[in-house]
């Protein structure tokens, strides 16, 4: 039985024995050339052009004859009396009736289908031991060297496709750990492929390895930035934010993705994701107040005076549910001075942060209205204990 391996260092196994040393580099290259052109009939002149372009005609013809003889001598006819190589006065080719296996043929036949199984994909993956004719360089054989480069491009693309398909199969079978390994293999080849990075983060999240997803994003983002001077796409960044805000290491998401309370050792941490809208006064402040109300930390809000609640109610009516008196609509509708709203807002944050470490994430700071922007600046200056404001652009 004949087994040909051209991906990685060439290996020719005939009846269980490696015979590439007996054949020599040029004979191995000749076999590879014929396999790559299996469906074509290569003329002797064309082969000489590939492998002995700098020899004179007679020497080149002799070299070809000698190497064909060497192959014939070492690879005998099969049980059906087929010789491995068909030779006539003009052309040479692999005899398609000859019984042999070759890695590149198997890979060329691959087309993704719903019948792909882990075993079939792994078998293909294992064929990639390295680059086509790895370690080979044929001095002055420009056309043949170009052919190797061309085919290496071809096989590299196929390798990525096969790995992608394998990752899909693993994911479908919920074999996430091995799926991650395959995705990492693809990222070794294409370290800046955002789709694969996104998939990897998603799988990490699915299996509850949130910290690894975050760590991976940070590394990916940094590498992208340092090597290429670009930032991750919005899609990837959104995925990162989504994962980052998910509360539990087991992948549970909170009831509200916008504001969360995390309890650890009796200390409650609060995370608020806030949004901005251009030119709408107080929008960000209002958004934060609304989300604090949603958190259900009533004890903090109740520390505000009735007047402060009314002042905040002017820009966020949800907070008025804590106002115990009957609301004087006239008073309520009366315009409140900016300074009162801001003071009340600061008091609210102080009340919240007094008992819980609070992180407010501002998602699109560039769109923040002017009043809110000034308030953020003020908050940074006065440094309320336990309050952390993070801008995420």
């Amino acid at each position, binding site marked *: 039985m004949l087994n040909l391996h051209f991906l990685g260092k060439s290996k020719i196994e005939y009846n269980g024995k490696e015979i590439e040393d007996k054949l020599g580099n040029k004979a191995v290259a000749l076999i590879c050339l014929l396999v790559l052109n299996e469906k074509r009939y290569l003329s002797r002149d064309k082969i000489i052009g590939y492998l002995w372009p700098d020899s004179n005609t007679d020497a080149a013809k002799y070299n070809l004859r000698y190497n064909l003889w060497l192959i014939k001598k070492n690879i005998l006819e099969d049980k059906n009396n087929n010789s491995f190589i068909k030779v006539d006065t003009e052309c040479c080719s692999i005899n398609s009736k000859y019984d042999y296996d070759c890695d590149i043929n198997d890979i060329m036949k691959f087309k993704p289908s719903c019948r792909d199984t882990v075993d079939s994909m792994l078998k293909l993956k294992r064929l990639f031991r390295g*680059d086509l004719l790895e370690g*080979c*360089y044929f*001095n*002055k054989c*420009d056309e043949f*060297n*170009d052919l*190797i*480069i*061309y085919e*290496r*491009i071809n096989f*590299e*693309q196929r390798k*990525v496709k096969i790995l992608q398909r394998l990752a899909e199969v693993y994911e479908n079978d919920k074999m996430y750990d091995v799926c991650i390994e395959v995705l990492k293999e693809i990222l070794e*080849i*294409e*370290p*800046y492929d955002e789709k694969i990075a996104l998939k990897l983060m998603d799988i990490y999240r699915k299996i509850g390895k949130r910290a690894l997803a975050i760590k991976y994003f*940070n*590394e990916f*983002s*940094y*590498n992208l*930035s*340092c*090597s*290429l*001077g670009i*930032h991750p796409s919005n899609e990837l960044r959104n995925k990162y934010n989504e994962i980052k805000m998910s509360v539990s290491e087991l992948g549970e998401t909170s009831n509200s993705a916008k504001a969360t309370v995390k309890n650890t050792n009796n200390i409650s941490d609060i995370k608020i994701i806030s949004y901005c809208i251009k030119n709408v006064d107080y929008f960000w402040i209002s958004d934060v107040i609304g989300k604090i109300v949603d958190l259900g930390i009533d004890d903090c809000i109740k520390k505000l005076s009735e007047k402060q609640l009314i002042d905040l109610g002017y820009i966020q009516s949800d907070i008025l549910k804590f106002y115990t008196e009957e609301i004087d609509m006239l008073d309520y509708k009366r315009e409140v001075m900016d300074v009162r709203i801001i003071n009340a807002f600061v008091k609210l944050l102080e009340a919240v942060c007094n008992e819980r470490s609070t992180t407010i*994430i501002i998602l699109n700071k560039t769109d923040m209205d002017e009043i809110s922007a000034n308030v953020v600046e003020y908050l940074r200056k006065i*440094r309320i204990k336990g309050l*952390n404001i*993070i*801008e*995420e*652009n």
Partner: protein
Amino acid sequence: MRADILIRNGRCMTMKDKEIMDWVAIEKNRIIAIGNNSEYEDLIGNETMVFDAKGNTVLPGFIDSHFHAVQTALNSVSFDLSQVKTHEEMGEKIREASKFFVGDYIRGIRISEGQFKEKKYPGRVLIDKYCNDVPVVLNSMEYQVSILNTCAMLYFKIPFTAEGIDMDEKQMPTGIFRKQANAILRTNILKNISKITRKSAVSEMMSTLLMNGITTINAMEGGFMYCDKDAEFIFEHGNEFPIDMVLFYQTMDIDKVRTMGLNRIGGCLYIDGTFGARTAALSFEYADCPGTMGSLRMSQQELNDFVIQCYKNNLQLALYTIGDRAIESALNAHENALYQTGITGLRHRLEHAELINDKQIKRAKDLNIILSMQPSYEVYWGGKGKMYEQRLGENYKRTNPFKKIIDKGVVICGGSDSDVTEPNPLLGIYSAVNHPVEEHRVDLYQALKMFTCDGAYGVFEENIKGTLEVGKLADVVILDKDILSVPLAEIDKIKVSITIKSGEILFNNLG
């Protein structure tokens, strides 16, 4: 007690309290005595090697606080092609190089498209005409482009599916790699450099460092545009070389650094880019490219998260910051981390910090941040008509404000950023005292501190190095002049006569 080495008749600047002594005595790897007049006589035995410094300066061994050791070493065995004018001239240089080729492949560096009469990079087919039997790899000035001949295309692992491979009309690779393809290829090539090649290149580099009086470097290794194998090499083999190498692993992988037992992280951990490529993050537009202000490599939140983790893991952190916007971002992250964790005393550093402003200096002081700066940049790029002015316009007058920084009490440790500038501390000292902008000049003593005691402070080694004191490591240099008597404008002409590292005389030009 007898000394192994005695240096007498010197102007021994101890770099402690501005003391100057006449002699210093060494036994084994330590300084055992230092003094004035002829009090040393009892220390001289039959075996004592006595050097007469002839009234010249004796200093602690120089510390270069920012040095890319492996890449400097590898580049020193590369061919500098920056001066060739045509493809043919370049080809001939490569042909010549191939005749004496040893190692893995021929490396040509510092080419740019504009230098060639043809106004384009040569492709593989052209390089093949001059060298087709040895792998050839050429790199552009800032490593943004790599060019391979055909032999190298088949020798190295090529990222064929990545974006950035130049193709010819037949859809075949031209051998020119940019963008993703270049970044991956560069990593692949650097990864494949053998340990033996690294070792032999670094060994060869040692003589240059010792000739310049360098006894300790902060080795900035690994990470992007460099190679993690460089960091791993220094980690494993750094102590096999005659000078001390303090490893800064340029990675964001805190777990890895912790596992290795390192107590610092970073170096060229990029917060922004370079002035040369107009990628350093400025608060104003580049003078020669209106509309461009450079960019930050990380969002504030990403940086904040990372810096907090460094604080929590008690790691000294060195961040690469060049433009004032990058410095601002780094300081914000430090303020946030300090506020969140309350952890102090880690001596965090900002590397380069070329465009730091007055407010930022004050904030750096408040945060006890060290600035690791490269005075020689001013020789290369500072002053009228040079790169800083081209890129920054009138703001070139703001670069590297050493005096303001020192006056505010911020520690500067000096480095060369080798091989961006030559590894010569005396050039750095010259540059700091002759800054093209007069108000930024520092006095000579301050400049010497940058490369001695303040360098030691920058890596927590002030108890064993950086000054000439009894009990400290015998890292000592003798200069060929009395630096205090030499006009400031001629300091760059001073040479090192003798370099002693841990009591071993490793460079001796006195005979």
